[in-house]
């Protein structure tokens, strides 16, 4: 039990009318007794942020923003992409999106929100400092996930993506592109790359690759010893390595695939100064530094961040093409990995 029980019934007022069904009120009272959080006056400047970033990354940003002169209070909803999508979809159909800012983990998801007129239409004036491949007119990339190769230290290190299919590995794991957008981004890049194509996945499959659900599942499986190597995100692979798991990370030729996480303003918050300040802060030098220190890869060049090996090659998918060809690429991919 928490200590904050008395007076715990005061809670988020939300945007809708403060109407409660009789049942809701009864249940509220019942639950208030088991520990709610007393939230006093809503601060004058506050915003609601929906994101898929982990707490480790997002909490330092929120703390830094709340301490700024142009800052404000941030109400956070953080969830993996699947739950985040479901919440946004449910919001949109029950009184409107409750977020002022959405910070997603891949451009496809955020573009879909733009297409539904939920977010977009504004980016900060100084967003030009972010490389052009990481922004559109509706959103700006704030962090990057790199798709890299993770391998066990008792097998040879791959140097190129093609090496994974070269026969050095008995068991390989790839993340499912119909579940993880980062995996779909990588698939889209391989599909468009003449030397690889979707056929690369057929080579991997012949070399003993299986499909697991998410990049984190790949890292777990390789660290555990279920697989010798796999395709995953740099963040999760380095985390496993830092923990002491017997794995290492390679940024293979022709390049680690960059998946950027865009931040976008909700269309109904177009006049919210504090929401705009938040976005400006996040993609500006100050916010990018905080992000880099908390272990995410920033999009702004020259800010630093977690390790990128010297001269590590990096490539970017053509997100518009990936979005347009998604169904065709996935259909071709499914012929290889079934499901």
């Amino acid at each position, binding site marked *: 039990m928490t200590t904050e029980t008395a007076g715990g019934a005061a809670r988020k007022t939300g945007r*809708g009318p403060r109407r409660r069904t009789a*049942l809701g009120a009864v249940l509220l009272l019942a639950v208030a007794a088991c520990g709610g959080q007393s939230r006093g006056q809503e601060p004058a400047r506050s915003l609601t942020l929906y994101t898929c970033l982990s707490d480790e990354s997002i909490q330092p940003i929120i703390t830094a923003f709340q301490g700024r002169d142009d800052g404000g209070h941030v109400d956070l909803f953080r969830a993996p*992409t699947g739950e985040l999508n479901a919440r946004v979809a449910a919001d949109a159909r029950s009184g409107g999106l409750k977020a002022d800012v959405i910070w997603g983990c891949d451009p496809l998801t955020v573009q879909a929100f733009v297409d539904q007129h939920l977010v977009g239409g504004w980016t900060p004036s100084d967003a030009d400092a972010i490389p052009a491949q990481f922004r559109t007119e509706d959103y700006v990339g704030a962090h990057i996930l790199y798709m890299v190769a993770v391998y066990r230290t008792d097998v040879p290190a791959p140097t190129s993506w093609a090496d994974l299919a070269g026969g050095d590995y008995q068991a390989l794991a790839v993340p499912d592109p119909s579940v993880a957008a980062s995996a779909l981004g990588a698939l889209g890049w391989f599909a468009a790359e003449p030397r690889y194509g979707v056929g690369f996945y057929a080579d991997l499959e012949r070399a003993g690759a299986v499909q697991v659900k*998410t990049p984190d599942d790949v890292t777990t499986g390789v660290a555990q010893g279920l697989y010798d190597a796999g395709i995953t995100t740099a963040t999760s692979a380095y985390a*496993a390595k830092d923990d002491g*798991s*017997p794995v290492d990370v390679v940024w293979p030729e022709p390049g680690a695939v960059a998946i950027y996480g865009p931040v976008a303003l909700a269309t109904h918050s177009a006049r919210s100064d504090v929401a705009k300040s938040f976005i400006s802060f996040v993609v500006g030098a100050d916010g990018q530094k905080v992000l880099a220190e908390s272990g995410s890869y920033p999009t702004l060049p020259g800010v630093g961040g977690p390790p990128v090996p010297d001269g590590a090659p990096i490539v970017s998918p053509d997100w518009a093409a990936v979005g347009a060809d998604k169904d065709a690429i996935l259909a071709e991919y499914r012929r290889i990995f079934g499901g």
Partner: protein
Amino acid sequence: MARRSGTVAVAALVAVLVLLPLLRLGQVLWQESDGAPLRALGSAGLGTAGRHTLVLAVAVTLASVPVGVSLALVLRRADLPGRAFWRAAVLLPIVVPDFVLGYSWTQAYARAGFTDTLLGVSWPGLLGPVGVWLVLVVNAAPLVYLVVAVGLAARAEPDGERAARISGAGSRTALVTITLRLLLPAVAASSVLVFVLTLATFAVPQVLGAPAGFETVTTRIYADLSIGGNPASFREALTLALLLVLVTAACVAPADALLAPRLRTVRPADPQAARSVPGRPGALRAQAAVLGSYLFLTTALPLAALVLSSVTRALGVPPTPANWSLDHYRQVLTPRTLEAFGRSLGLAVVAASLLVLLGGLVAVGERSRSGRATATLVTLTLVLPGSTLAVALLLAYGRWLSGTLALILLAYLAKLWAFAHRPIAGALDRLPADELRAARVSGAGPLTAVRTVALRPLAPALLGAWLICCLTALHEVTMSSLLYGPGSETLAVVVLNSQELGRIGPTAALSVLLSLVVAVPALLLWAGAARLRTRDAVPAPEPARVG
């Protein structure tokens, strides 16, 4: 009068918790697919996923029910060596959250797992349909055991068994004609639960099925919600979820309507001594040996893998003392998680207590045809995957309750109502009205009469239902991670949000802590239930052994 208000309350709650959310799902789907919801099912492989789900649900039910019933029958014997220990051990899988089950099995039996490291033996089939099936069976069996054991506690007729044996029936005949016959309501209740839970199961197919390309409807729903965030895949997710509801309705409604009333018998409320006919020592030892091996392979090894992961500093290093550290526990035990734990515990206790009341009301109402329809209705929200049930509740009440603990509580009540109802229904009999009347005539007030006559034999079932609801609510993650808001983060949300779900160490530590938090009071409750059962037991005379 009391019955009338009970009926009204149940009807209102069915409307709030089940009908309105389902109708909102259907309405959104209808509007957005221009009146042709099935058109939302365009993409490839759906038929296969549907077939997998159905075959899996049937296969898991067919296997886990006999296992669970056998466990209950073996553990019922007071003369079984080490019985108290076995009874606690059997229930352990229930305290392990679904999302680490798959991992613990791979760590025990797959490549580079325990058996591979120690004996050079690994089981590649674990990562595939057979592995999914086996893990689900092993984890459904304790649930069946619980439902059947509380059914046995309330319904067993040792006198009947003795009479059969004395009249010359062999032990098998006595088992089939007396014991199992009396257990049918509990068996039916647990079969329905396991069938529906398997239809809705997600985490185990997700982890163990994916490497073999084994898709189910629920993994498909998750993929639909995960990728792209576009309306078409959202529609497909809703359609699939509603199809699961229809399949459940089609399978469970006839069973509830036709079967349930035929399984019940009118019996005196007085619970008899649960002491059964003693067995031969050799047979008992053999039973204990089989039970021990089963539990070692299905529970001890995977759980040991989990516990070791929680204290080993990294995945993939040998779990030897040199590599032990409490870092994962330190990550899990922060002021924020403790605050969230208080909240989760409160929610779980409130939810479980309300659920036992709601479950009991539905079980009592099953005497009438409309009551049996209610039993089916409350099962429909159990089959909805957490993500879609949460969406349904947001669609219905999000306007007013979004981000509040009240909405999370509603979600728990909706999801677990059948969980509370079925074990109670499995133990309930039609009490002869005479007994209640006799109590009233002898001067007992209506409440006292119900408490002393009707509730007494049901106590183990009520406790069992409470326990299982409380446990499930305590480590529930999908719905709360979708419904929470500022100040209503539950424990699992805080722990899993701090890092991605893929980080096994902290998640394992969380499971171990939850197991401890739960196991201690659970054991106390279980012991309490056992005492309640036997307090009035008259020592039975040693029966003559026949045949």
